[in-house]
């Protein structure tokens, strides 16, 4: 069974159709990329999956359950985490607190555990903290645990956002342009990081404009144009697909 199943998904904003009858399936353990020109509706698809927007029509199922029209926090708790195109860290929280906030869905502390610092609450807090430090290590930010997220350099912020998204132990990770603004070295590191995350058992669905990165990392690519899926297949298939070349990579000279 597919981990994520999107069928007949449409989203209209007034007269504008941002997503048109989109169908898409992502199998567990895959790395799938979504590409397309600016304004093709890629981020809208992410916002539909995470419940920021309600679909105008169509279905989204995650691990066999319908998730469209569920509130965002429940979708997140069900195991879909994401990063944002324009980084949305908690700028004035430490890097460590950002990741610990990401662990929210894994935690069971109730109001009274928080208020009274019960032994259960304290132990959980300790565990969560240790795990957050591990995750900071994974993305190479162990030295910056106490730094405000907003004062970190740009590339570090991108990686911190990934650590925060991973903190909830998601089954599916949505990355919205993770390489944007990164230099070639940071991109190489990012490539390794994404592979490492997949090795830990997380399925990855990413939006990315950097073609070389997309071609290197994805097992499958979906191409979106004007809200419609115009092609889907392996990197090699996409590279030679005439419709894609015309819509996105530019007509051959």
């Amino acid at each position, binding site marked *: 069974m597919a981990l994520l199943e999107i069928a007949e998904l449409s989203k209209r904003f007034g007269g504008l159709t941002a997503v048109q009858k989109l169908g898409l399936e992502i199998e567990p353990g895959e790395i799938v990329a979504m590409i397309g020109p600016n304004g093709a509706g890629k981020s809208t698809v992410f916002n539909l999956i*995470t419940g*920021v927007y309600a679909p105008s029509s169509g279905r989204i199922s995650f691990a066999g359950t319908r998730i469209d029209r569920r*509130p*965002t*926090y*429940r979708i*997140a*708790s069900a195991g879909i*985490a*994401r990063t*944002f195109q324009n980084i*949305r*860290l*908690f*700028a*004035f*929280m430490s890097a460590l*607190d950002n990741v*610990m*906030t*990401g662990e*929210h*869905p894994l*935690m069971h*502390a109730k*109001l009274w*555990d*928080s*208020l*009274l*610092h019960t032994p259960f*609450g304290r132990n*959980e*807090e300790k565990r969560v903290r240790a795990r957050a430090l591990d995750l900071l290590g994974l993305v190479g930010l162990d030295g910056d645990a106490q730094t*405000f997220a*907003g*004062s970190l350099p740009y590339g570090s912020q991108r990686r911190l956002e990934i650590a*925060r998204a991973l903190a*909830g132990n998601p089954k599916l990770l949505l990355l919205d342009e993770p390489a944007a603004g990164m230099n070639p070295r940071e991109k190489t590191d990012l490539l390794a990081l994404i592979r490492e995350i997949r090795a830990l058992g997380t399925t990855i669905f990413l939006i990315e404009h950097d073609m070389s990165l997309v071609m290197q990392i994805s097992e499958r690519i979906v191409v979106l144009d004007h809200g419609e899926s115009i092609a889907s297949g392996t990197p090699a298939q996409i590279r030679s697909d005439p419709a894609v070349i015309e819509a996105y990579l530019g007509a051959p000279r």
Partner: protein
Amino acid sequence: MIYLYYLVTIGTVIAASRTERLGLKRGLYAGLGALLLIAPLFDRNDADYNILADTGIFLLLALGLNIVVGFAGLLDLGYAAFFAIGSYSYAMLASPQFNVHLPFWALLFIAAAIAAIFGILLGAPTLRLRGDYLAIVTLGFGEIVPQVFQNLTKYTGGPSGISGLDTPNFLGHSFGVFSLPYYYVTLGLIALGLWLASNVRNSRLGRAWVAIREDELAARHMGINTTTAKLAAFSLGAAFSGLGGVVFASKLSVVSPDSFQFSVSILILAMLVLGGMGNIPGVIVGSLILTLVNSVLLPQANTIAAAIHLNVDFTNVHLFIYGAILVGIMLFKPEGLLPSRKRRAELRTALGKSEA
């Protein structure tokens, strides 16, 4: 003599906030607590404890509002409504009004629970609002609640309120007409309040609040149910003022709607702004300074003025004084006297951007 309490407390809190060593910090607070506990052995002037008990009530209110505004970032301009609800809970359940005479100690819990429930009821309609809009709606609630108490004459005694409230007992001993027992009660409640507030600050819920305050959409993507988290902030904050209300009403032995005007909400908010919003030591310092001005300095200025036959009433200018203090702090230290690291960074960034 009374100044000593304020000076020692403010000094200790500032000293404690300067050190990073947790042991020393705890030691300083414990020492301060012990000192305040034994102070009545040396100071037998009950008038001092009258002022200090009132100070304690306001500190309790400030700690509660700090949860709503400082931690969760929900600007509440009608916080006095919950103070009123707490006070009236005591007035209705421990007085000849309905001939119900529940014990003071039980009513602390009951009033806190009633205020918490109203926190949820009044918080629920505001959940989708942010910033200015939230402030306007809470301001409205703050006006409505005293109006309701004023006009439900049959139950609340109308504008003249309810009087002849029960005097609390402790192990069979009546508090009598003394302020000292109330001083000890507020001391205990403040210790409890400080413990709860600092616990919740560093917890799953506390982080959720800060996350909501920073970026509500991102917080939802972390699996945070922003609805319940906000309601928890409203109800917890309200519970604190429920406690404060019970002590306030029992100490005064009378409640009336005019004790819960808009200026009370503003006074408490001013304490947070002055001290440093979101930072517990800052809240303590802010509320001590404003109550010192209000209950000690202004009355004394009056006495001095009367002695030299100067015909001014300084207590009438208290709003002007708050205003001056607030303008001063906005100009010179907008993050407050004792801000958290977070708040300082936020304001520095915000100001840096607006200047650029």
